[in-house]
């Protein structure tokens, strides 16, 4: 894109819409009745023609959920959620099981067009060379389309919606579903287990390097819906997969709930790279509306030399409560967590990671960059646990926070538990503001103060941006600029 055009676009973005994904698509939906009881769970299961074992699994989760209490330890503050005032299932009408793109509601396709998701392969191919990404698009509760399936099939990679996987590959789903995040893990994960509607499923067979990036786009559209997607990714021995996740939602006054569960399983010598650009609607200037993002993400390096890497760019949501974790079970397995969390307006972020070292010679690396602006609060909360048997475990943690403005907060709450003497654990954290010298220099060179802030912030988060796949890195960089609009001056 020519530089001039890009500048024009940026200026337009500042003037017109603070949240550029805030449109709503008028699509007829199939809604489950409002509220949650056993019949809701049965309704969802029946809608998806699920086998008996899965219904039982859901019901078990639902019964356990009823005995659980909402967690309150995070540094977030919000009115109590009325779980009976939500729709737990919303599917675009008439598109149940589309065979091809032609069967998909054109309105829906236009939505994705607006979002800039390359649903049609030819569009992708017409775009940047080599930018080939297979996309699974999830609209409210249901996966609507998955691209590039044939090519993936040739490589032996299974990439489909989880409901489809339940039908086509029940043995895999049964083996791995809930094996990383157990049904009773926490309040929101248990709720998700009871009512999850859809999500993506990936299985990469032994020795296969997935030929392209896999991607899912989530969008909440319907009013008062909760989105409860469930993602399950399995990299068999020696396999490699890189997976991207993007999220948006329309601008609404009320809060919408998003409680997802993501489970990753990496077997011997396998590697999973999971990247997220989370841009749910953060609420308006006065903190009204926005998504509650209560997500459980966990990866299990189940066998030797497995590697799981989480990269996240969190700019959206009114409230984020999310701790992508790695269980380093296999000897010499590795976990990584790279995070950029930006909060502006009245956003509240409580995010971080857990690195559980169980195997010998395991290593983990945490790089977290938190940026708070406006009246937001941004908390890094992380656990590094070195188990008694984790001989020679290594961890390095770096948490940096940047504050922009007088009314925001940046907090760091690390827990570091060492139970083995041969372990080496290092943790450092700093909090600072953008230096006046840097700002002055940029402005003296003709940048506006807003551009200068975006530039400096991009430098601050560079370590993490470098971890993102190329296409995402560009998107994330722009998103950072947009998120910080109005934070200076």
């Amino acid at each position, binding site marked *: 894109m020519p530089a001039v055009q890009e500048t024009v676009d940026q200026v337009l973005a500042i003037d017109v819409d603070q949240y550029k994904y805030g449109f709503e698509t008028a699509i007829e939906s199939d809604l489950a009745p409002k509220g949650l009881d056993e019949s809701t769970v049965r309704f969802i299961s029946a809608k998806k023609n699920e086998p008996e074992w899965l219904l039982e699994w859901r019901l078990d989760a639902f019964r356990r959920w009823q005995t659980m209490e909402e967690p309150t330890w995070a540094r977030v503050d919000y009115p109590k959620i009325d779980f009976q005032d939500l729709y737990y299932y919303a599917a675009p009408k008439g598109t149940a099981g589309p065979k091809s793109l032609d069967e998909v509601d054109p309105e829906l396709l236009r939505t994705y067009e607006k979002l800039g998701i390359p649903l049609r392969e030819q569009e992708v191919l017409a775009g940047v060379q080599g930018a080939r990404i297979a996309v699974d698009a999830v609209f409210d509760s249901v996966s609507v389309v998955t691209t590039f399936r044939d090519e993936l099939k040739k490589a032996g990679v299974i990439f489909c919606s989880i409901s489809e996987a339940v039908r086509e590959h029940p043995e895999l789903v049964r083996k791995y579903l809930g094996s990383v995040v157990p049904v009773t893990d926490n309040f929101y994960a248990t709720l998700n287990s009871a009512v999850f509607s859809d999500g993506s499923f990936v299985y990469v067979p032994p020795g296969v390097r997935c030929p392209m990036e896999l991607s899912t786009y989530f969008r909440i559209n319907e009013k008062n819906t909760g989105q409860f997607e469930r993602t399950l990714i399995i990299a068999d021995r020696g396999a490699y997969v890189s997976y991207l996740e993007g999220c948006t939602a329309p601008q609404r006054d009320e809060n919408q709930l998003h409680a997802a569960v993501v489970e990753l399983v990496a077997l011997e010598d396998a590697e999973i790279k999971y990247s997220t650009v989370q841009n749910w609607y953060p609420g308006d200037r006065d903190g009204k509306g926005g998504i509650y993002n209560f997500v459980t993400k966990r990866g299990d390096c189940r066998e030797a030399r497995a590697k799981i890497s989480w990269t996240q760019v969190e700019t959206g949501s009114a409230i984020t409560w999310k701790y992508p974790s790695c269980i380093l079970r296999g000897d010499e397995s590795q976990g990584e967590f790279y995070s950029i969390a930006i909060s502006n307006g009245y956003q509240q972020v409580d995010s971080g990671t857990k690195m559980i070292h169980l195997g010998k010679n395991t290593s983990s690396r945490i790089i977290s960059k938190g940026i708070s602006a406006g009246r937001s609060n941004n908390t890094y909360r992380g656990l590094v646990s070195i188990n008694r048997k984790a001989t020679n475990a290594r961890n390095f943690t770096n948490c940096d926070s940047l504050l922009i403005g007088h*009314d925001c907060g940046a907090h760091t709450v690390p827990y570091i538990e060492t139970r083995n003497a041969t372990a080496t654990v290092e943790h450092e954290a*700093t909090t600072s503001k953008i230096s006046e010298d840097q700002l002055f220099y940029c402005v003296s060179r003709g940048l506006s103060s807003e551009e200068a802030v975006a530039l400096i912030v991009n430098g601050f988060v560079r370590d993490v941006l470098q971890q993102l796949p190329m296409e995402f890195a560009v998107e994330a960089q722009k998103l950072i600029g947009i998120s910080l609009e109005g934070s200076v001056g």
Partner: protein
Amino acid sequence: MPESAVMTAEPRILRTQAEKDLLDLWRRKPERADSAAIATLRDAAIARFDKAGLPHRRVEEYKYTDLRALLKTVPPLAGRADVEAARAAAGPAAEGEVRLVFVDGHFEPALSGALPKGVTVESLANLLPHGHTLGDRLGLSATAMQDPLVGLNTAFMRDGVVIRVAARTKVAERIAIEHVATGAHAAFLRHAVAVEDLAEVTIVERYRGPADAASHVNEVVELTIGDGATVHWVKLQTEGLAAAHFSTLVVDLSEKAELDHFALGAGAAVARAQVFARFSGEHATLSTRAATLLEGRRHADATLVVDHAVPHGTSRELYRAVIDGEAKSVFQGKIVVRQHAQKTDGKMASNAVLLTDAAEAMNKPELEIFADDVVCGHGATAGELDERLKFYLMSRGIPAAEAETLLIMAFLGEAVDTIADEALRDQVTAEIEAWLERRAAAKAA
């Protein structure tokens, strides 16, 4: 009992032995001649304890120090020892020190030296029936008052000293607050220290006891430091290996005030040393360091909350722990910077060396920041002694055990070397050396 009855039974709180002991202690009501204000404070504190019990792992601040599990019993209070027995227990005073001696929780004015000019000391036991002098010094910090251990102290406090250092007084002698336990007794000490504007003083606290007695100490010090005043504070806790030691230092720093604090923790089966510091005047400085030595199955917790409530505060924290055997060290440090506390400069470091495979180190360094123009950071490490350094020393002909000792001394040295008072620095070093010698002897045997 039919099954349904079990299912619908009201959950009843099961009290631990230590909780029962404490409630018994309260019920037995030793002679207390409190003022109405003090009595109200006590009643509220015990009511809170009755409801919540001892703090356990589900209480965030006690996540790693579960007192329901760690504290087995609480011994009874001791009667007053006769002066000669107390004198024998206390031993001679060190040179250049004015001593304030406590034996099993009782202040012994007869054993205490003549006070320097500008310093006044009153016994808390004498003040409790009146409460007026104390009233404005108790409950300095809301954070501290909510703490369960401070709550227990408030409920049971019997004695202590109220020290006042008059404005502009530079006290040449050290003031030593010494507590000696003679057996398995509980002592609840509450001290209030006010160092007025531009004064300067060095205070040393020593806690000792017999090697095997399960003594129990819960002490709270409320320290206010006036404008431009300087306090050097050194604490040596070398109680017996069956003891329980809980201490809380609540400090309030006025403008340009300075606290230079060091704590050695080398004794007690279960120990928790808390520091709650609050900056209420600008340009104040807090420096706190600690050296913790642990062996066997001991458990030591260092908890710190630094509250920067005003701009231009500086805080430096350095906590070092050496952990042997199956011992467990806990460090929880929290720096809070409030919204208007611009130009705060806070740095916190916590380092642990694990000498065995079974040793454990728990670290929770927290930052809670609401002001944008600040520089704050923390660092935390845990690991074993550097094998390469040890190898180097051994290659130069130093035996393995000695090489380890040297490396441990060097590791703790960074915290110890900053003690301003030379005599106190030597004492702390001597205690560390004694610990290392015991360790070497145990290893040889």
